[in-house]
């Protein structure tokens, strides 16, 4: 108690010393502000976990029910693109981490460089994703909007997939459940892509701020917290990739 009062006086004293420009009025110290925003970011990520949690639950149940449909539907995904995208996202996570590092080291040039790299990789991810989406549209694999069971009722009608996996034709009732897979595929990757888009738009803004030197004067909180967000989006993909692309490829 006495100890706490002692430090308390210290804290009270802090009110009077000079504030850096980026310290909000209601914080006692820069550290407090940094901790606070950092903790807030983590809590926000918790909500994000639960947000995707609902989707994952739905996915697991449907996958258990309609396993054959899920297998053949996932064979329709291009594993090359998927792997590439995973790589891209992981590297972007790395560049982001490096961005945080250069902000901490107060290296303005490197910060801008790494943020831009992250931006480019993020765009690359979205580009690849859109190629995949387009492919799905071409193949009539967009449930509800542009859908046909053909490639599951008769896999042979789709040679390049068939020659790899020799899928057996699905019974009609199971074939239509492939639509369920693609519904979840679009829901999950779509939700993930949305997070990417939000991230990239924030990055754009940050790159300009960074060039103005906003984050290399000791105020790294913003970059750090954005980093947390970016890594979280990466983690979601780390799970989406095996769940959606890698259902029994053998």
């Amino acid at each position, binding site marked *: 108690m006495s100890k706490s009062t002692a430090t308390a006086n210290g804290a009270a004293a802090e009110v009077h010393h000079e504030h850096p420009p980026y310290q909000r009025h209601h914080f006692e110290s820069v550290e407090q502000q940094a901790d606070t925003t950092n903790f807030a970011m983590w809590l926000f*990520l*918790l909500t994000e976990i639960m947000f995707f949690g609902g989707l994952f*639950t739905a996915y697991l149940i449907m996958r258990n029910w309609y396993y054959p449909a899920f297998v053949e539907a996932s064979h329709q995904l291009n594993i090359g693109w998927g792997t590439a995208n995973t790589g891209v996202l992981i590297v972007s996570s*790395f560049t982001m981490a490096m961005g945080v*590092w250069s902000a901490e080291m107060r290296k303005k040039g490197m910060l801008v460089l790494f943020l831009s790299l992250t931006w480019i990789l993020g765009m690359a991810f979205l580009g690849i994703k859109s190629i995949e989406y387009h492919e799905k549209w071409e193949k009539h694999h967009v449930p509800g909007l542009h859908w046909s069971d053909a490639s599951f009722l008769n896999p042979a009608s789709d040679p390049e997939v068939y020659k790899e996996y020799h899928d057996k034709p699905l019974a009609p009732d199971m074939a239509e459940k492939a639509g369920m897979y693609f519904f979840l595929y679009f829901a999950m990757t779509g939700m993930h892509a949305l997070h990417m888009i939000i991230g990239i738009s924030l990055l754009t803004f940050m790159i300009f701020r960074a060039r103005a030197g906003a984050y290399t004067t000791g105020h790294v909180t913003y970059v750090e917290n954005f980093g947390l967000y970016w890594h979280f989006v990466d983690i979601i993909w780390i799970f989406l990739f095996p769940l959606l692309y*890698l259902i029994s490829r053998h």
Partner: protein
Amino acid sequence: MSEHNGQFEQKDEHQQEHHIVSPVVYGSILLALLVGTGLTVWASYIDLGEWHIAAGLTLFWNPVVALAIACTKMTLVVLFFMHVKYSTKLTKLTVASGFFVFLVLIGMTMSDYFTRAWGRW
């Protein structure tokens, strides 16, 4: 409890704040993650077989392995890229509680689905 929290908590975070992870660590993590990705793709192409635990309850190894690798990758990202390894108890607790509730959602929902066969409907 009360001593552990309060402004003391903020103090030790203050020291943590300036722990800067070296690019070498980041680099090696990146490497590990890429290797993990390669591994999981490779593993998905070989049939790892299955395990009949009981009648009507079979465990396929492929998804298990895939998820295990994914979890490892996640742990690496969380610990190093997201600095949790160097953060306060509070942050660690926050992360833990997040995953706990996530598992509650999935686990307890599943508990319903898996025990339905037990009853006669």
